[in-house]
């Protein structure tokens, strides 16, 4: 019997030590790192504004406006935008597509972001979506509210209403949210005229629906979305997205909706840019320090990256390999400039590092990760080593090196 010519090839992210992180695992990790970044940004917001209602309302308004702006334009442009969307997803006329675009739109985004679940009900008058998992469930209640404001935008767009205002004919309630401790996220849309309901304000989206919900029993719940379960997402009308497409999509869009949009409001909550940046660095540095205080976290990382025992605990390559794996899983192209016991240098273009979604670059990514990785380095490796980011023409050089700082924070 002839032997195979070679082993099967599969996609994955290669660590600094040659171990392959499988594509699905890398995708999951990418999602969680974006969610963790978002969680830090929301902590910054809470320090800047201690009024839950006020800050939630502000980010809701921005998220709604930015979602609407994404397809702004004249009536013709909006029509073309919607038609292109219907066409892309093969959404036929029979579903009253204009009225329910929000319900359809959200599904492929949820699935790409591993918010795994199901459309429980899809009728002319009511849509119920139930999610069993959400990588963003660590961010907090303001985020859960904000996502409902984004769904509202989808309905607003379809209704052709005034951007930034709630003009649609549907009441949307995220009546459960995993980020608030519920077993599920559950969003219910109910038509105002059919259920005799009122238009909602930004803070009204956590109410209960008029009709009973269907609660999926624990043994039927899913741990991951279709892509991670089955290798692709298939929408109800048969159109498919590959796992590869979904991964690339979230590596861009995850930064936009969960960080870029709320940041517009959060920056305005600070007295000036200096105050915002000072608080941002403190929050991210603390998050970094706490990531590796436990010995099992350090051991776990070594195991995950397959770091050989010849490389000791107090070696900059441990931190360098961690940053490399994070960048790799986040699909950020980068290259090694140095990787030895003296230090690590990683070159990455500024455009790639900050412009995960090309049209909306985020300088906060550099500020945040510089502080977070520096903090992490002090517990993962030792306080003898630091992380800092230098500019080099259009590139950044991410350094792991020795640095004495008498005022180290």
């Amino acid at each position: 019997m002839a032997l195979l010519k070679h082993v099967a090839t599969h996609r994955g992210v290669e660590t600094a030590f040659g171990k392959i992180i499988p594509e699905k695992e890398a995708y999951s990790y990418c999602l969680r790192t974006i969610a963790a970044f978002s969680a830090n940004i929301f902590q910054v917001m809470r320090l800047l504004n201690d009024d839950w209602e006020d800050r939630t309302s502000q980010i809701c308004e921005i998220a709604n406006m930015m979602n609407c702006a994404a397809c702004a334009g004249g009536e013709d442009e909006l029509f073309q935008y919607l038609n292109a969307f219907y066409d892309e997803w093969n959404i036929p006329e029979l579903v009253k597509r204009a009225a329910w675009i929000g319900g359809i739109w959200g599904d492929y985004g949820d699935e790409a972001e591993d918010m795994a679940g199901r459309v429980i009900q899809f009728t002319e008058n009511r849509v119920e979506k139930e999610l069993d998992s959400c990588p963003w469930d660590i961010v907090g209640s303001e985020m859960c509210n904000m996502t409902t404001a984004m769904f509202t935008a989808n309905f607003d767009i379809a209704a052709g209403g005034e951007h930034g205002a709630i003009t649609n004919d549907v009441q949307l309630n995220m009546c459960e949210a995993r980020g608030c401790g519920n077993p599920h996220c559950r969003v219910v849309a109910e038509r105002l005229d059919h259920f005799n309901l009122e238009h909602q304000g930004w803070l009204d989206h956590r109410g209960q629906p008029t009709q009973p919900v269907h609660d999926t029993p624990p043994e039927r719940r899913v741990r991951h979305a279709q892509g991670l379960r089955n290798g692709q997402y298939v929408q109800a009308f048969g159109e498919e997205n590959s796992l590869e497409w979904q991964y690339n999509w979230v590596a861009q869009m995850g930064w936009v909706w969960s960080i870029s949009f709320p940041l517009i409001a959060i920056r305005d909550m600070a007295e000036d840019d200096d105050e915002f940046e000072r608080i941002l660095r403190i929050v991210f540095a603390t998050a970094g320090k706490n990531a590796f205080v436990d010995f099992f976290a350090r051991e776990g990382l070594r195991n995950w990256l397959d770091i050989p025992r010849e490389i000791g605990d107090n070696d900059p390559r441990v931190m360098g390999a961690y940053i490399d794996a994070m960048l790799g899983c986040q699909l950020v192209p980068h290259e090694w400039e140095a990787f030895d016991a003296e230090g690590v240098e990683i070159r990455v273009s500024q455009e790639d590092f900050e412009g995960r979604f090309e049209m909306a670059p985020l300088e906060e990514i550099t500020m945040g990760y510089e502080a977070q990785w520096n903090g992490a380095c002090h517990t993962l490796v030792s306080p003898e080593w630091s992380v800092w980011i230098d500019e080099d023409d259009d590139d950044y050089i991410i350094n792991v090196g020795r640095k004495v700082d008498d005022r180290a924070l």
Partner: protein
Amino acid sequence: MLFKDDEVARAEAKAVRENAGWYRWTHDLVEVSGPDAERFLDWMLVNRIAGTPEGRGKYTTMLDEKGQIIDDLVAFNRGGLWWLSTLYGPHAVRWFDAHNEGFDVTYQDVTQAWDMYAVQGPNSGKVMAALLDEPVDDLKRFQIVERHVGQTAVVVDRGGFTGELGFELYCARKDSAAIAEAIAAAAAPFDAPRLTTLEVYVRSLPMEKGMALRQDYKGLTPYEANLGWSVHMDKDFFGKEALAAAHEAGERRAFVGLEIERESYEDIAQKEIVYKRGVPVGYTPAFIYGYTVDKNIGFGVVDARKCPIGTRVTIGGNASPAVVVEPKWC
């Protein structure tokens, strides 16, 4: 997703099976005309379209270069003008654009010009008699005629997607609200409700009768999809050579029914993996609750050799137990 305890959905399904029900149901509609229209459609579609009498329609599939199904539709001959009722018109138009060389033919997606209502169920003929200026109960399946609702011109065919006696009524978009009102008035004396639960009339009622949407057949040949009866190998059509070769080699996959042996099926989405003794053997295009048969039912595309009728399988990550059955429940 429909559930056993959804009484609204159950009542709607029951109305269609035992009495009558009506709903807005708009296939996309592609109009084909020109001197070569009939010849063109005969080439693009596997069923014999040439010679279809005026006022009659035929169910058929459309194939790609690999002989695999990319659409299923009904082609109606409306006197030199052809109507194709398909799930999604823009795809058909793009496909025609790519393969119209040598044909004097024009076509356009006219979905936005027409609206459509379906009246379905054993008593649907009575509702139509109360609605229209002339009866339609003697129509043959896929026969299409012109009628009036009051003064408004409409087009009616005998067809539908529920497996029951039924009719589809086309009207101009501008007349849609008035027509809906007229149907409601005609249906009221028969207690025939308007259906509002999309999945009852798009999935549950059709699936019980073995009727699939085109996406369920994606990647299958007509033979694998149990639609070999519609293939006319004695004429030329697009994809014929590849289909003949695949048929000659034998069908590798089978389009089957799957019955879930659990109370519910929330963990099953489109294209969930089907396992036999822990080994992947196929996938599920769709699942739904069937209120007539009171079961969680679905379609499966499985390895034809490994999964004869009666095979026990599991579906998805939670290993929902199921059995392979014929893809028609009532």
